């Protein structure tokens, strides 16, 4: 018996070492790129371009972050990104919550048909070209509203919201209805306060989706004042030449000759990447439970 017990603990030990190591390594692989990006943006740019920054930042400065703001289009893109995230998320909250609430009511006019009308849109789409032509006909190409209006009704969030509202005891609403409160009053005074958890989850998913969205800019926008940070980052990643050009112009007009803080194509790419990812990295740890809630509720069928 003892021999078996010993063998087990030895096996256990090996198992644990391997297990902890594998997870540790994968976690490092997930985090290291962000760390590497970060130390390269705050290290002296001449050291960066000579390839001397590997694990430890050297010649720490924060000029890159100040300098990229002077680049053409970047401030505007930041504005567009923040704008669409705020307004788009607000729109999604409004649309999915109200329509979800309405469709949770048994007395809704032809409820079954309209619910199917909404849900079925999750399972088909017309394809890129018909969608693009449609957006063009609606006047939403090169328009900021193309980021906001189509996001207002999201069938998936709507199902989640409707399911949640259906579980709120109807007696709460009924007593208000007795007092003569209409649907809008009941929705805003009773349902919204009671559905805060699901609204928070919806908001956080919508906000991340808006912030990360890239293809809609690619398809719809040619006017550079409508570009988002994601799109600009994509352009910078792919157009090294034009990037170098615009940097050259910047350094010509400047008087500084300090090599360590002059922007290079690499430093711009990395700094813009950090600007794009920082909000996510900052927000994520605090809202993790909402994300996790989202996937849990999502796994329950609507």
């Amino acid at each position, binding site marked *: 018996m003892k021999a078996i017990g010993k063998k*087990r603990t030895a096996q*256990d030990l090996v*198992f*644990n070492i391997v*297990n*902890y190591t594998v*997870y540790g390594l*994968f*976690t490092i*692989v*997930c*985090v*290291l*790129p962000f760390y*590497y*990006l970060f130390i*390269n943006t705050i290290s002296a740019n001449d050291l960066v371009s000579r*390839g001397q920054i*590997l694990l430890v930042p050297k010649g720490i400065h924060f000029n890159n972050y100040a300098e990229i703001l002077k680049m053409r289009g970047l401030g505007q893109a930041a504005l567009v990104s923040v704008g669409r995230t705020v307004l788009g998320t607000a729109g999604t909250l409004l*649309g999915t919550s*109200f329509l979800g609430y309405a*469709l949770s009511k048994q*007395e*809704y*006019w032809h409820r079954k048909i309209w619910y199917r009308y909404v849900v079925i*849109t999750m399972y088909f*789409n*017309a*394809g*890129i*070209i*018909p969608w*693009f*032509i*449609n957006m063009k006909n*609606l006047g939403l190409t090169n328009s900021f509203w193309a980021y906001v209006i*189509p996001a*207002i*009704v999201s069938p998936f969030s709507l199902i989640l919201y409707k399911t949640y509202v259906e579980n709120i005891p109807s007696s709460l609403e009924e007593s208000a209805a007795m007092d003569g409160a209409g*649907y*809008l009053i009941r929705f805003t005074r009773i349902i919204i306060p009671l559905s805060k958890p699901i609204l928070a989850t919806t908001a956080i998913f919508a906000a*991340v989706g808006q*912030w*990360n*969205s*890239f*293809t809609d800019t690619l398809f719809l926008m040619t006017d550079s004042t409508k570009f988002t940070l*994601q799109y600009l*980052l*994509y352009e910078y*990643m792919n157009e090294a030449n034009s990037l170098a050009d615009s940097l050259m112009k910047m350094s010509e007009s400047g008087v500084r000759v300090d090599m360590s803080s002059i922007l290079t194509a690499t430093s711009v*790419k990395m700094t813009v990447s950090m600007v*794009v*990812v920082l909000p*996510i990295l900052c927000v*994520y740890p605090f809202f*993790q439970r909402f994300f*996790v809630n989202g*996937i849990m509720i999502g*796994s329950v069928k609507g």
Partner: protein
Amino acid sequence: MKSNVKKKTRLIDQGGFRLWLLSFPFLILIFLFSYLPLYGWVYALFDYKPGRALTDCKFLGLGNFTRMFADKYALEDIVRVMKNTLGMSLIGIATSGLPMMFAVFLAEIKSKPYRKAVQTLTTIPNFISWVLVYSVAYAMFSVNDGFVNRLLMNLGILDEGINFLASGEHVWLNMWLWGTWKGLGWSAIMYIAALTGIDQEQYEAAAVDGAGRMQKIWHITIPGLLPTYFVLLLLSIANLVNNGMEQYFVFQNAMNKEYIEVLDLYVYNQGMVGINYSYSTAVSILKSIVSVTLLFVANMSSKLTRGESIF
């Protein structure tokens, strides 16, 4: 007032109808953005040139559909693109057990802070965009600034950097690796949740019977997670041809284009880049039909085997 009392069933007096009226603007939005574009399918029947009225374009009937199979070059393209689409999807399906394994072995880590840290940090990549994943790929693997090349050169293993990103080799595998890097931690969360639903008494009973760690995993944990796995597997089969285009679009370059072009990217490249509006629409219509069929097949097999539909 009197007439009001009489015609109590008048539509406007019904609460449900007023509610419908209140929500009507949102129903219109759904129509505008999900149903109205379907009208664009008629473009597949014409030789549409942007800027012209549809009535001035040549009517081709099903010409755009038959072209995919009749035209030698188009057929070559379709075969290549289908290979990429199915190849990458099948790699994904073949490794679909990975998130489950991730959750199972993560649960074997007894230190709670360590477990939480792993869980939190490995889910972060899921919340960054593909453009940013590309930027990360650039930061890690580019010739001059990439971490890997710098490390290998500093260690004296390499004299010159390797251009990993522009390589046309192992494209499918690379795409799978990036997808896994981005999604593994997040996909595991579903299973981590399902783990809490497994009856703890089973483990205690097994321990009394002298079952070891691996035996418990094999005979209790995995069977407990299989229903979840099965649903997700069916969904991934239903999405066999829907790889999406974003990942492949940001990673595509002249060197790897042949192997990276999946159906969604092909539709984009043909339509938006090549301005073959009609042909591209025809391809996407066929894709939709295949995709909806697969969804029904997946749902049917779920009903037959589990007695429950997946959606």
